[in-house]
């Protein structure tokens, strides 16, 4: 009875996010009937992939009751290093470049993971420290020099311009394919693997998970490493989407957008509950809001406020649902 009630609530939460998405689109359509035209749909499709890729890692971290605010800086480091490799070795294969980006991110994420799981530093403090440290690292590596557009291979920027499917001018670009592949792998990993199930158990009740004999430290370490790896991959996708990498701006502040997408998608900050579908919906919602703000002529100054409000709304809804769930459990 309780398990099905939980499942119903999760579904309800996803339906809620979808309803919010419809609401945003409807509001934008009232103001501008051509909101869903080819140009805007294409910009939404360009906006989502980075969110989804980083969001999958962030979701797994939040599932374990953690947080990673250093993802934006990790994107910066990986974007800069891979950008410099492309600058100095123009013939480097772009898939090798993506793999190197993932590897760099994994190392940075593993540092976070080590600090959190073995040195027992609270996630927010550890990643707040590395948020600054990694940003500085990006500057040190490139000596403050931006990677210009003529240094990014055309085959890489083509990922953002072309795709396997184009319907009436709306391009499902290759970045979308990267994002969907990441989402599918994450869903498969979380649903079927022993470690995936352990991630949920650790977030639901860390002490119980430890007593059951789950390797809590190892799994936590792995989760932050994977989160870093995905942020590193996103750094390369950033280079593809924007065509240049600046050590100061690449990924800067992106942690806020990602966390907003993940929590509005129904991932509970108290750990243990959250789904891939929810994060996909959350990313779609955030991407749509972002394009809608521009289309409705709302100043870019509103962006930060909107992201913050989205997080606050999600937190309040989840805390209410949590209490409802508690009452359900008591009454049954």
């Amino acid at each position, binding site marked *: 009875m309780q398990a099905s009630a939980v499942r119903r609530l999760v579904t309800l939460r996803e339906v809620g996010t979808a309803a919010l998405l419809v609401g945003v689109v409807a509001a934008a359509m009232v103001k501008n009937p051509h909101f869903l035209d080819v140009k805007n749909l294409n910009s939404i499709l360009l906006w989502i992939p980075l969110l989804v890729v980083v969001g999958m890692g962030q979701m797994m971290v939040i599932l374990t009751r953690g*947080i990673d*605010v250093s993802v934006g800086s990790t994107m910066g480091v990986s974007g800069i290093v891979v950008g410099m490799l492309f600058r100095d070795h123009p013939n480097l294969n772009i898939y090798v470049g993506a793999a190197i980006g993932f590897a760099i991110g994994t190392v940075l994420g593993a540092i976070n993971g080590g*600090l959190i799981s073995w*040195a*027992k*530093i*609270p996630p*927010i*403090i*550890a990643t*707040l*420290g*590395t*948020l*600054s*440290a990694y*940003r*500085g*690292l990006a*500057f*040190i590596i490139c000596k*403050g020099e931006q990677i210009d557009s003529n240094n990014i291979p055309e085959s890489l920027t083509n990922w953002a311009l072309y795709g396997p499917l184009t319907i009436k001018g709306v391009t499902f670009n290759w970045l979308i394919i990267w994002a969907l592949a990441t989402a599918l792998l994450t869903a498969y990993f979380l649903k079927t693997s022993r470690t995936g199930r352990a991630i949920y158990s650790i977030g639901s009740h860390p002490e119980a998970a430890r007593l059951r004999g789950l390797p809590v430290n190892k799994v936590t370490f792995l989760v932050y490493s994977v989160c870093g790896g995905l942020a590193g991959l996103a750094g390369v996708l950033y280079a593809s989407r924007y065509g240049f990498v600046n*050590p*100061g701006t690449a990924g800067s502040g992106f942690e*806020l957008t990602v*966390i907003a997408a993940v*929590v509005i998608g129904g991932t509970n*900050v*108290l750990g243990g509950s959250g789904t891939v579908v929810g994060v996909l919906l959350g990313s779609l919602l955030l991407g749509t809001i972002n394009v809608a703000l521009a289309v409705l002529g709302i*100043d870019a*100054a*509103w*962006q*930060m*406020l*909107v*992201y*913050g*409000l989205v*997080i*606050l709304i999600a*937190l*309040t809804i989840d*805390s209410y649902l949590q209490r409802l769930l508690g009452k359900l459990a008591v009454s049954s």
Partner: protein
Amino acid sequence: MQSKYFLDVRYLLDSSTLYVETGLLAIGMTFIIVSGNIDLSVASMTALVACVTAKLMASGWSIPAGCAAGLVLGLVLGGFNGILVAKVKLPSFVVTLATMAVYRGIAQVLLGAKSAKLPASFVGLDMMHLPGHVPLPLVIFLVIAVILGVVLHRSLFGRWVVAIGTNESASYFAGLPTAAVKISVFALSGFLAAVAALMMNSRLGVARFDDARGLELDAITAVVLGGASIFGGKGTMLGTVLALFLVAVLRIGMGVADVKAEYQLAVIGTLLVVAVLAGNLSAKVNAKR
């Protein structure tokens, strides 16, 4: 030695006015961290109060009325954090991560890329000195630090803060007003952020939405470096003040040596992690003894 002026007492004293604002945030953060929480929104509260008071004064409010409104706003912003943490029972790091964006976002919507000018008679607190070339802001900071140090270490309220940070549910079952104490601690943090905002306005003469950006990192680092446990229940005002001067001297030193802002940030971020690491390590060694 990059500059012969670095060890000049007058230069160091004058530079201190740049760090008393961070210092005020660190005093509030000491209460927050000892209570077992964190407040990432302090710098955003400073920016919002700075922008609002500057706008009010520009639109004809008198200086005392503008300052009073700013201080009340600080209490409200901090209190809102406190209610979300204590009543809605959400973790403080997510609440204040969200309000960090919301508060600075409101400031940005309010002023955009423009800056608001403050009345000439309000500007220049940092240029005032007591005899012996002691800057007035430094004195204000030290007085507040002493008063709140007494509150933290010698008052019933202070004991409650430590008790809640040590074991919240035990404190609750012992009959302590845990929710009220937590809300007060966050409101205090907001109030001190507002005081910092007024001093910043007086020093800079203009307010911008990106004022005080990133100061939460310096404040948290100072508190942790000063020996407070990041898990709550342990920490002293004296430790915070001493560590704050260390952070300030480090920043001034890097400034004199012309170290880029991003590198400075990296140094402070690394210092934060190392400080917590050292704290955890010494706790482990003590536990083994």
